[in-house]
């Protein structure tokens, strides 16, 4: 069990590479101050643009995405769907719109025939909190949640017919939250009870994303047994990883509901949900608080995190940098002057020439033709490959057994 640089959250937070974060901030804010001083006002273009320099240097992202994956099916894995939906709910509440969330649920618990309360998925016992809500949008559902589709979403190598809601259209200034839950083991995560994704594949997928600059910073959270093994192999920059248990430990579920009959949530995600319920879009809670979210006394397993690939100090990373969507704004101080009386633009596009004869539907299925069709004479092809080999074998065996003198009876 390697402890090395992947500190359990109980000990002091590891400092990642401090690269050029602090000196760059100082240099650039000095340059920004100098730029502000230099701003001049022409008589026509009014004012310089107020630069909120300090906002830009906290994090360099302009939009947020979330990829939330639940990989297990069957009714008794209700808790994994509830985990994913509770993170989905927090992320939506903190501001990320559905168009920026890719939600993958491997099974349908809300409308499962065994659900005594249809259209609900609860996270707290006694049915206190329904995380399914009224406006959940599942992008990949049931059998569409496969390792291949997950990797296609991450790397962007998607067939062109995929709709926009199923794509991760992030750019180099996107912060992405990736949350995965299900059954896992040392170095793999099981998808749908039939296949698995290994930590090497996941690390390669992240590297492909980094090569194409599909993310600015990535927060990877995994809630499975031996979850820390999944982030061991990451080697791309700007990734923070959190896991619910170390290698060799199991993540445990929280509490069963006797009315529904299954365990409702996993411990790590349960306490993370309670932590996130306190966060609102303007709050200043940072990553260090998230690292402490489930101490061993509550979680039984030891959650771990990995920050050595991350350039900023986790102390300066706000929760809303990943879970929310707080956009940088600037006041618009300039306008351009338009002339109202200038002749309007007449559309120069050629108007479509209207069809002169009425249009009618083409025959969808030429039934008459099919019924009265004569069978097409098919070309004869000599037998190839397998048939030839089979006959050669049969003939060889026959002549071996009975001797060559029977040849004249055949031919």
């Amino acid at each position: 069990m390697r402890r090395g640089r992947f500190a359990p959250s109980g000990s002091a937070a590891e400092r990642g590479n401090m690269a050029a974060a602090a000196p760059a901030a100082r240099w650039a804010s000095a340059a920004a101050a100098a730029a502000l001083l230099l701003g001049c006002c022409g008589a026509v273009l009014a004012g310089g643009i107020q630069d909120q320099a300090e906002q830009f240097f906290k994090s360099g992202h302009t939009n947020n995405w979330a990829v939330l994956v639940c990989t297990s099916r069957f009714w008794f894995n209700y808790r994994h769907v509830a985990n994913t939906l509770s993170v989905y709910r927090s992320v939506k509440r903190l501001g990320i719109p559905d168009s920026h969330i890719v939600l993958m649920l491997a099974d349908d618990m809300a409308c499962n025939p065994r659900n005594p309360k249809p259209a609900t998925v609860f996270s707290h016992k006694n049915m206190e909190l329904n995380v399914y809500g009224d406006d959940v949008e599942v992008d990949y559902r049931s059998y569409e949640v496969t390792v291949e589709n997950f990797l296609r979403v991450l790397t962007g190598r998607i067939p062109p017919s995929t709709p926009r809601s199923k794509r991760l259209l992030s750019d180099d200034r996107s912060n992405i939250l990736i949350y995965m839950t299900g059954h896992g083991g040392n170095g793999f995560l099981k998808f749908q009870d039939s296949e698995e994704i290994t930590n090497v594949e996941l690390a390669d997928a992240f590297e492909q994303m980094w090569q194409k600059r599909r993310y600015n910073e990535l927060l990877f959270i995994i809630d499975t047994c031996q979850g820390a093994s999944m982030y061991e192999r990451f080697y791309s920059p700007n990734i923070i990883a959190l896991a619910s248990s170390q290698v060799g430990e199991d993540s445990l579920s929280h509490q069963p509901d006797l009315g529904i009959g299954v365990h409702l949530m996993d411990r790590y995600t349960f306490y993370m949900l309670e932590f996130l319920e306190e966060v609102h879009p303007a709050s200043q809670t940072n990553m260090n608080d998230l690292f402490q979210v489930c101490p061993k006394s509550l979680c039984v397993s030891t959650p771990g995190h990995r920050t050595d690939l991350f350039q900023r100090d986790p102390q300066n990373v706000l929760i809303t940098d990943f879970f929310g969507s707080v956009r940088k704004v600037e006041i618009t101080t300039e306008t351009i002057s338009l002339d109202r009386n200038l002749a309007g633009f007449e559309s120069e596009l050629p108007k479509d020439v209207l069809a002169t004869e009425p249009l009618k539907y083409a025959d969808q299925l030429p039934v008459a033709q099919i019924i009265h069709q004569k069978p097409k004479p098919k070309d004869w092809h000599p037998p190839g490959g397998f048939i030839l080999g089979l006959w050669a074998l049969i003939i060889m065996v026959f002549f071996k057994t009975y001797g060559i003198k029977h040849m004249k009876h055949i031919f």
Partner: protein
Amino acid sequence: AVSVSVVFLPGSVPADLPRRLPYGDVREERVPVSCKSPAVCTARPPRGAWEALRAVPYGDTFLPRLSRVAPGSSVCWQSCLCSQPSLLPLPQGVNVYVGKHRSALVRAGQGLAILHARLQQLLQVVSLTASSIAAALSDRVPDGQLGPDAWRHLKSSLGYEITFSLLNPDPKSHDVDWDIEGAVNHYVQPVLDKLSLVANFSVDSQILYYAVLGVTPRFDKESSSFILSAHSLPHVINPVEARLGSSAASLYPVLNFLLYVPERSHSPLYIQDKDGAPVATNAFHSPRWGGIMIYNVEVPASPQTSLPLHVDVDMLRVMEVFLAQLRLLFGISREELPPEFLVESPGNEGLADWELDRLLWAHALENIATVSTTLTSLAQLLDQISNIVIKDDVASEVYRAVAAAQDAVAELAEGHLHSAFQASKEAVTSSERAFFDPSLLHLLYFPDDQKFAIYIPLFLPMAVPILLSLAKMLREARQNKKEPTKMD
């Protein structure tokens, strides 16, 4: 490369010219941009080639005559110099007036050195500088070198979707009517036509009812109006964004421009900036997303007017702000101008010719850099997975991307901006198609160690008796050679 022709007005030829007119001079300047892959950073800044023409007669029609230099295939600038301030209609303290059609008036009577300096400054303003090159190459340049506007501007893309939305949270009190189609045809379409070289644009509009901002504004007693302070602005966008929607079919980035008509109970609503001063435009924008403007409805004089009030939105005022925000989002606007510069307003076209050139240049640079990194990482992927299958069309896309990128670099070096940009666009399309081809998923190709892991448990048990019997046969053969078997 940019060629600049300098027209001297009568009486303004500096005394210390090294040669007789006309003459040409070439100056090259290397812009140092340090970045991680030096192969990419051979960005060539403008070269100034001057040509002084004969004296041009001066008259009332002077300025219009200086306009519209026929671009032909290379970017060409005309600047005009005068030493006697009375001859030029420039206001005091302004030494350079930049027109919108690639021409400028420069006041420099004091000698060649000042002339050089002013022209240098002019070229810096209208052309690329180190910071804008670094911004264009932003993901390949180490973070320390980037300025604050490195990630403000939209990335170069083949198309953009622009959506105008009217938010009316209180339809019971305000019946808002906006002639968006007319405004788009009148004001927006000329700008988009000028930008059509850069990308394809599609424009939509929508009206959203009962869409509230995420923040409750405070009431300010002194001005008896409602105030939205600057630090609450980031939280305004989120609740609205979920309802904005976007076209399902296209993958282009979306620019949202929202016009918010505050509720009657929260009218009038003003935005305050960080120092507490009200913002003249009553608008704010978010980089790479779009802009929001708040349109206050005048409270009617008589309190008995029947609700809902009919409101006809003044689209000119609105479009002035939206188009200014569009310029900012694209990075067309120039923040810091040297103090003696005056730039002509672009008017209804939205942007000056030289601003368009700058945008094309920056986008072309960005495209070429993207192509080189994409193809490099594709090559790295192929090295990693040795048994990957490259389909023919992927291969042809790669060849096309390489050829187009080389074209683009050559054209940029000569200054043929439009063809360079087209070539760079083609290169980017081909390289993206090659890189994101669905068949290149690394999951589909087993690494060699996994293949061993699958086949060894199958074949090793089978192979053991075969190998042992082979070994026995060899031993017997060797023994037979040593002592021939006794024949009985």
